[in-house]
């Protein structure tokens, strides 16, 4: 079913919207949740919650790209669940390793006087990503947006795991420098 038709089902408050979404995008959302959470029970719950959130968001929202709209909800829900689980000492997928890598970009401390404008930060991130060749940009996003494992990314892009790690390492350093040059105190 076309995306516009699925979105219209939500707008019509037609419950067929949920199975239509699940059929088309279940296999897109589930790996995102699984990468973050690392267990099938939480994954299933987060994917189901994704549809509920989509139901609550549409209307009034009309997403331009349905796949990434749903993916973003899944990512947010899964990440929240991960943080909840971590507080209760329950492990989770790739997230801990991914976060440790991201710690190279930020100070990983919470300073009261430090207020970062999130919208400006996203804009700067987009500026950085926009300057990368599409291949490297996609590798970076696979790792830090989709939480894909290094081995999965290596397989997808036909490179060795070591090569992917080197690319990511350099890109993290570049992003850190890029943001610092633009005055972000991370």
């Amino acid at each position: 079913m076309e995306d516009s038709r699925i979105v219209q089902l939500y707008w019509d408050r037609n419950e067929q919207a949920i199975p239509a979404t699940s059929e088309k995008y279940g296999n897109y959302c589930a790996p995102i949740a699984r990468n973050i959470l690392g267990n099938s029970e939480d994954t299933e719950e987060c994917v189901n919650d994704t549809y509920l959130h989509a139901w609550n968001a549409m209307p009034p929202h009309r997403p331009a790209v349905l796949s990434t709209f749903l993916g973003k909800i899944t990512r947010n829900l899964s990440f929240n669940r991960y943080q909840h689980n971590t507080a209760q000492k329950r492990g989770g997928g790739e997230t801990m390793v991914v976060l440790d890598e991201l710690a190279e970009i930020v100070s990983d401390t919470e300073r009261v006087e430090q207020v970062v404008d999130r919208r400006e930060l996203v804009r700067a991130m987009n500026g950085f990503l926009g300057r990368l060749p599409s291949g490297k940009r996609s590798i970076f996003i696979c790792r830090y947006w989709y939480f894909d494992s290094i081995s999965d990314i290596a397989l997808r892009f036909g490179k060795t795991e070591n090569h992917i790690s080197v690319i990511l390492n350099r890109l993290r350093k570049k992003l850190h420098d890029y943001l610092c040059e633009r005055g972000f105190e991370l």
Partner: protein
Amino acid sequence: MRKEEFCEVFGGINENYVKEARTASKSKKTLWVKWAAAAACLTAVIAGAATGLTNLDRQPGDTPPASSAFENSGRPQGTESPAAVILSMEDIAVNEISGFVDAARKWYDPALYDSVVWDEEDILGYYGKDLVPAYIPDGLTASPQNGSASVIIGKDGSVALDTVWLNFYHDYYEDGSPKLTEEVSALKGFVLTASKIGLMNDCVYLLPEDEVKVSDIGGTPVTFGYRRAPYGPYDPETHEPSGYFDMYVAEFEFEDIQYQILAEQMELEEVVKVAASIISGEESILINE
């Protein structure tokens, strides 16, 4: 900032990049399968069997690179996005440009010619297709003036001047003219010029005409040019510019229409994608590094 917060903020990046990341990786898999299939077909050719490799054949006299710069990846499973076209930047040759010259402008005798403004429908009727490229880079938008073109028509109905300019820039003034960027006082985006009769300006390449390198995009020869263009303000004493920015040009003829893309402050990769989208008609153009 906590790493968790940074990770959350990263979730808000441009969704086109997010989509691209999945399409790119999926398509590479598909491409691999396709190359494997092509290799199998090639074996069959050697064995004397008929095959369907005609798309990869090259004609004598062509000046394409060694490998194909155009593959269709097919439709990713589970989505209804259009088929993606895959290009390799290794197959793209860029020639240095020393400048541009305007072809001599003709004067049209009002007794013999009329100046006419074509609207969108007229342009579509004359060219037989929508000239807007299927792929427009992020951050660029169509000028509000794009829907019309001033042309010259003879009293006998013949078209004497048919050039259409389409602007795609990052921002516009109220009158529709593109804005300069703040950091670099130059335009950011591209103008697409199209004509069946002939383009109104020419690139002056540093190389002799017969040595200018041509790239092959889907069987269409495309000439790419590059110029390190200066921008002002200029130093009043030394006349040195404030700096330089990248200017790329892509020129080609496709389906009897001559095209020129003049891009300022754009990556070469993006210019290649725009050209490939005109030739393929596909929006999804992937660059295979």
